[in-house]
């Protein structure tokens, strides 16, 4: 993928509509994998994002973002034994819902129809952890501080318009904690595909 991006960058021509435009809006679908936690470690495509910004210099932009994703994991039937000798046997679904939003900073390397960029997002994350057991659901929510580095590319194939496409990959970390599920921070990796204006 890095090679493909490099080829696109070095063969790209000038794009007219995007050259003088200082603001941008991107949005689309994202596939998220929640990793390195004891609650849900799964990859799912139940997510979307939107972000926008303003180029305060020709290459550097600041703006805002919001996204959401759900990661679900099925846990087959098990017996859970508790300290008072009570016991629970059931299968269950765990669901991790995350909604980060905040500020984004973006640096693009080119002002051509292919615009590779790096970005950093800082903000807050609202998260809900749910466990579905039979006809019951146990749910708790929490807030945390959120950071996310990102690398991506916006591509504007129609020089006369502002319309283009975006592809990006990211890592994110949020400080959300949940003692019931032994969650001490939420780590994610993922990619996103969207449209760009």
């Amino acid at each position: 993928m890095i090679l493909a991006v490099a080829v696109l960058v070095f063969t790209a021509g000038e794009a007219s509509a995007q050259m003088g435009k200082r603001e941008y809006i991107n949005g689309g679908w994202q596939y998220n994998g929640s990793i390195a936690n004891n609650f849900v470690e799964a990859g799912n495509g139940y997510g979307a994002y939107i972000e926008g910004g303003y180029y305060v210099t020709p290459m550097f932009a600041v703006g805002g973002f919001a996204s959401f994703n759900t990661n679900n994991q099925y846990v087959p039937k098990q017996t859970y034994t508790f300290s008072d000798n009570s016991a629970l046997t059931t299968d269950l679904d765990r669901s991790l819902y995350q909604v980060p939003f905040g500020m984004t900073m973006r640096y693009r390397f080119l002002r051509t129809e292919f615009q590779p960029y790096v970005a950093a997002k800082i903000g807050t994350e609202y998260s809900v952890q749910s466990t579905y057991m039979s006809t019951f659901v146990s749910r708790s929510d929490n807030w945390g501080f959120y950071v996310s580095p990102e690398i991506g590319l916006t591509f504007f194939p129609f020089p006369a318009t502002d319309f283009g496409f975006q592809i990006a990959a990211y890592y994110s970390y949020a400080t959300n904690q949940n003692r019931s599920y032994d969650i001490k921070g939420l780590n994610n990796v993922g990619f996103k595909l969207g449209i760009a204006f």
Partner: protein
Amino acid sequence: MKKILLISAAVMLLAACHKEPYPQDSDNEYLVYTSPGKNVDFSQYQTFDIADSLLVIGQSDKPMYSQSNNALALIQAFRVNMEKRGFIYTPSNPDADLGIQLTYVIKTERFVQYYDDPYWWLDYPGYWPSGYWGNWTGFYYPRPVTYTYTTNALLTDIVNLTTEEDGKPLEILWTSYIGGAAGSSIQSDIKRMEAAVDQAFVQSPYITSTQTK
């Protein structure tokens, strides 16, 4: 300003987009929860009696007692497991050490579908084709659609009859909850509940009389 409004609207939209797990992921077995009383020692008990009827709540306006074949099957499932653990069944004996009472609860939930696209099945492959009734372009429901689903549960208490005193509640030594979504037939539900009763004893190894030691 327009962008701020757009982003604000998007955040609110995102917050409503939690993807719930699919119910069909479930193994369709009942949840089984068991809980003993504090410091209970079953080895000091030898005999038990079990109510000859199942208390049924939710099937009619008032609770009722049932001795149907289904009710008796559940009662028998508990009796068999207790005997396997060394307890002696002493029906209608006022001197029995333990008493077992079973309660069956059936509950129907009703809700109205409020989602933006409630009639997703209209687009389901194989659903009534639009040309079936003539040259129409599709279907719509001009009214909200109400769904129902039914749950059932079996609650069981083992009570201590050795300390029975007039006017005082019986001490509950052990309780179990077996529950989940109701199946397509009561017969299949009873089969699943019988298996769940076995599981309730498997996860309660401390229910053992001295007879087995």
